[in-house]
Each structure stands twice: as C-alpha cells, then as structure tokens.
C-alpha cells in the first residue's frame, strides 16, 4: 500500500510550508501542556516555604551537564539543517545522529539522577509519621512529573529524528529536518525552564 501525498499538502495559502505550519501548532499545544504543569508548580512553590529544603536534594551538576548536552544537541540539529540547505546529505545524516547521541547522554544522566534521588528520598521520608510508604511530597511529585514528561518527549523526539535521518539518507522529505529541529528546540526550551525552577531555585 503506497501512500500518495495529496495535493492539499503541497498547497500554501498562507505562504508558509504546510509541514512547518503543522509543527508550530504541535509546539503550541505542547507549550500549554508544559506551561500548565509549570504554572501549577510555581503556585505551589510560592505557597510553600519548605520546598527550598526539598529542592536541595536535586543534583545540580547533573542538571547543569544535561543543560549543556541539550544545548549542544540543538546546535547539532541546526547544523544538520544548514547542511541540508547546502546539499550535503551525508554530513547532515551524521549530525542528526549526533543529536540523537546527545539525547542518549541526557537520558543516561537522568537515569542516574532518578535512581539516586529516589533512593535518597525513600530513605529520607519513609520513617516519618503520616507519610504513606513510597509517596513523595508535592515538590518531588512535580519534579518527577515535569522531568519525566520532558524525558518522554526527548525519547519521542529522538525516535522521530532517527526516522527523519533515514529519509535524509534516501534523499526524501529533506524539509522534515527543519521541522524536527523546531520540535527539538522546543524540547530544549522546556528544559531551560525546568533547570532553574527545579535545580537552582533553592
């Protein structure tokens, strides 16, 4: 079953290519999701003085390393887009995979963080009265929800970059490098918010 791109996809009443327009709407919907979560976190945080203490358990060097890794990955995906524009598909393919590699490093660091943070916290909170075993105070709830949701988007994004890279290899749908780049910048931007809010603000 072959798929034919409809004429509709090739039109552009607004002058913006359809794929790019679609991706901006995707980003818009994601902004509201993460925005909602972050606003809730802020409202809670402002009303709870004790959270500074909780936040001291986050591993700032790990967060800083991840910030650097993600920013670098964004650079790589921009480079890939530039190389496509210059016609150099092979180099572009490599840079897309550098981006994916950065995503991999990010996830490894996150895995390390999660495993150490969870055990520390379990140790720290299990013996207190009134706490259900394994239930984290609200700060940690937001931390895991926000960074976890973000990590899922990193994984999803990496998968899509991989798919796009195979298209690049075949010389098809090269415009998708730009679009996936837009998405990746969004994922990066969310992290730029999460890092200060969860790691630095103590």
């Amino acid at each position, binding site marked *: *079953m*072959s*798929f*034919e*791109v*409809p*004429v*509709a*996809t*090739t*039109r*552009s*009443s*607004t*002058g*913006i*290519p*359809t794929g790019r*327009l*679609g991706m901006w*709407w*995707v980003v*818009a*919907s*994601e*902004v*509201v*999701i*993460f*925005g*909602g*979560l972050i*606003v*809730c976190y802020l*409202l*809670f945080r402002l009303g*709870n003085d004790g959270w500074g203490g909780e936040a001291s358990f986050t591993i700032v060097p790990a967060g800083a390393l991840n910030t650097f890794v993600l920013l670098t990955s964004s650079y790589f995906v921009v480079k890939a887009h530039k190389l496509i524009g210059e016609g150099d598909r092979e180099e572009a393919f490599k840079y897309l995979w550098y981006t994916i590699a950065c995503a991999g490093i990010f996830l490894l660091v996150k895995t390390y963080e999660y495993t150490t943070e969870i055990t520390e916290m379990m140790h720290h909170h299990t013996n207190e009265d*009134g*706490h*259900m075993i*394994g*239930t*984290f*105070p*609200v700060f*940690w*709830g*937001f931390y*895991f*929800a926000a960074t976890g*949701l973000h990590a899922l988007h990193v994984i999803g994004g990496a998968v899509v970059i991989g798919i796009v890279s195979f298209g690049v290899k075949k*010389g*098809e*749908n*090269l*415009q998708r490098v730009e679009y996936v780049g837009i998405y990746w910048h969004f994922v990066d931007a969310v992290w730029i918010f999460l890092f200060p809010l969860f790691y630095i603000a103590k």
Partner: protein
Amino acid sequence: MTQKKKTGTRKAPAGHTSHHEESFWSKYVFSTNHFVIALQYTITGVFMALIGGYMAYVFRMQLAFPGEAVPGFGIVGPGEYNNMVTNHGTIMIFWVAMPVLIAGFGNFCIPLMIGADDMVFPRLNRLSYQIFLLSCVVIIASQFVPGGGFGGAWTAYPPLSSEAGYSLTKWGQTLWLLGVALEFVAFLMGGINFITTTMNARVKGMKMYDIPIVVWFIVIASILFMLSVGPLIAGAVMLLLDQFHVTGFYNPALGGEPLLWQHLFWFFGHPEVYVVLLPAIGVCADIIPVFARKKLFAYKIVLWTAIATGALSFVVWAHHQFVAGIDPRMAHIFTVTTLLISIPIAEMVFVYIATLYGGSIEFKTPMLWALAFIAEFLIGGCTGIYLGSTGTDIYFHDTYFVVAHFHFTFVPISIIAVFAGITYWFPKASGRMLNETLGKIHFWGTVIPFTFMFLAMFPLGMAGQHRRTSDYTIFPELAGWQDWRVIITYCLLIMIAFQFVFFWNVIWSLKSGKKAEKNPWRANTLEWLVPNVPPHGNFTDGFPEVYRGPYEYSTPGRKEDYWPQNVPD
C-alpha cells in the same frame, strides 16, 4: 527531492487510473482518506451515543421506579447509579459530541468545502482515529473491571477520584482517566490537521472571508481545544500519579490541594463547551441560508462573536466553583465575566434570526433541525444566567436546574445539530435522499419529548433536588415530586423509541432511497460540486476556483436564487 510548493496548484490528483486494487482493509479500515475517516468517526460516535443513551435509560428508570429491577440491566444500586451517571456524561461529551461534530463533520466538510483533495496530513489523520478508537475501547473496558466503572462524576474531583479507598473503583478510575487522556491526544492530533488544512490548503481564490462558517468554527474550536486542554493534561498526569500513590498533588494530608484539580479541569471545561458548541452552531449557519435562500446576515459579526466568545471562555471557568471553597472575592470577577460572555452568543443568535427575515423558507428536515437548534439553545443560554450569577448559583449549584440548563445546550449541540448535519449532507455522502416523511416524524418525535423532559427539570431544581442521587423518595421535601420524575422518564423512553425511525430511514434510504442529484439543495458551497459519495481525490474533474463567499443567495440581478462559489460572474 523536496516537495515544497509555495502556491496552490490546480492540477487534478495524479495516478489514479493506475493505482492497484485496494483490499477491504486498506480501503475502509486503514484508510487515510478523509471521507472514510469521517465515516469512521461518525459511526463510532453514533455507536457510543447508543451506549451513553443506554446509561441514561438505566439511571432514569431507577429514578422513576426506585429499587425496581431495570429491564435490560437489573437492580441499580447506588454505586451502579453513580457509574451510569458518570459515564453517561463523559461518553456523551468526549465520545459522541466531539467525534461527530469535530472529527466527523470536520473530516467530511473541510477538504470538500475548501476545494482540497484530502487533509494535509492524512496519515496523522488515520493515527488520530486509531488512538480515538483505542480510547473508546479503554472507556468501555472500564465498565468490566473489578470494582466496576468509575462513579465519581464526569468532573472526577479528587480526593474521591484519586483514592481508591474513597471511590471504591480502583481500576475503573484509572481506566476512565486513561480513556479521557487518550481521547485528548487523538483530538490534539486531529486539530493539527483541521487547522493546518484550512489555513493552507484552500483552493485558488478562497480568501479568509470566503470560508464557510462551519469550517471556520471547527478550526476555532480546535484552537480553543488545543489551548485549553494542556493544563488539564498536566493535571491528569498528576491525578494518575496520585491514583498510584506515587504523589499527593491533590491530597491535603500530603501538602496537596484538592481545588487545584477543579481549576485545571474547569479551565479546560468551560472552553470545552464552546469547543462543541461552535461546530454545532456552525452547521446551522450553513444550513439556514440554504433553506431560507438568504445570505447569512453579517458574516463578519458571526465570525467575530465566535472569536470573542472563544477568548472570553478562558476567563469564566470558576463559575463552576462558586461554592467550592474559592475566595468569595474571586467570585465577583467570575460572575462579571460569565454574565458578559452571554452577550456575544446572544448576538450570534440574533444574527441567525435576522438571516430569516425576508427569506423564502422551506421546511425540509435539515432546516427543521437547524431551526430547532436556535429555539432550544435559547432556553439553555438564558437559563445559564441564573447559574452565572453568583447570588442565585448559591442555591442552584448542583441541582437539577443545572442539569436542565446544560441539556438545553448539549442536546441541541450533540443531537439536534448532528441530525441537521447528517440529514443535510446525507445525499452527498451516500448518493441517496433520506425520506422526508420519516425525517419529519423522527424530528418531532425527538424534539417534543426532549423539550418536555428537560423543562420539567427546572422546577425540580427550584424545589431543591440535588444531582447524582439515585432515590429522591427518601427526602421529605422532594418525595412529592415523584410523579414528575416518572413523566420525565416516560419522555425519555418515547424519545429513544423515535430514534429507531432515524435508523430505519438511513438503512432503507441507503438501499432504496431516491437517487440524489449532485446539488439537491441548490447550495453554493464547493462540496456540492463533487460526485455523490466523494471519490478518492474529491475533485476528479479538476479543482475549482473561488470567486466569492458562500452565502450569495437571492442576489439581485441573477436568474437563479443561488450563486455557487466557483461560478464566475
């Protein structure tokens, strides 16, 4: 080689004389074609309506005859009652109104009405339906898990919904939440398609103000949905984590706040009602001019009132929470915004009424439905004032007054406007005309019982009858109204019975109905140019070019009383 093209093309879709035989699966099940997907969404939505309607039947029978076994269900205990009420509401909004009005009509109307051969992202379109179908399976499955289906009301306020010890439906509450979340994802995906297609894939000559209102409104609804659902998705993730005892976002004992969910829910919940209202009222906007043979009065006012309503809908949400424990000072702000939001909608209704002035009105079935929408929705809109006004909401909150109010808005939206659209576009979709006599019988048999049934609920609410209770005879102040509850239930049974007329009409007409001409209603919009049962690619004879807006009816100086968009001077 990239496939970027900057301007619209007018060539017909290529390669269709040579493409291979498609199997049943690729043509009907795994199709990326917008028409097939529209049918999939619509048929699924109608199927889910049967389930939601069955649930209403069960709980209304319990209310009329408390304690007696309901035929086709059995004894309705308090837990089962709550489950029926909860899932009736949830299903009707998320699995009936939204799929039929937005995805069903959207997928059918948008490409045809803007002169395109499909949506711009057909595979994303197919994926969105598949996820939607999965969400249907999940919500239905929630009925059959240990503990039973979730019974914490469609609003699912924690701590009831976050703690299985309180709700007693450990699996039901999680599956319910997952079903809703999947539905959200499906409609976010669908929305990307509707918005991008309408923005970018219009045929040559179709400017912004030449777009039919129903298309505009589905797009605005998709944008509203997209912007409002985000925080609730965040909130749902938080609720899910609470349900698994990982976190205590909504648990006061753990530093959480139950009211947070309410804010997140209603921040979405209020725009959501406009998400379903706009496509419905849009359908009526496209039907009334056709059957009155009159130009839609003040197209731009219609458009701007919709946008104003959409924008305002983001600042009214706490009117659902006046007595919930919010700061009473906040209530003043929200009562003002809520009373103000009635104004653009009132203006829109005035415009539709003005469209009828000086017309030459034919009462075909689609027009009957569209007119009924206006008359009934007015009741819903006006009674909303009692609830938006803080002083009276103290009394009416959570009573049957609310139930009556929202059914006078939701039933016009999800039933009346849906039948208007189905009877209107049926000839194009199937190539047959529906039987007019059966159509009218179905119409009156639906609208009359509906009106009586819910009008009767206003006095019940005024008498202090609160919602979500399975037996009112235990309350001395309410026991005397039991006859009214019986009559309401009979009205529902009559209304349900008349739906068989519709199904019979559809089945019979598909087989033996009169063959329809291409443009049986003599309408202006582009969908009437394509062959009946739109073929793959829609405009197989070449794409049209648009010269004007869609509502030029009875234009002076013309022989015909309509002027299709694609016909030059």
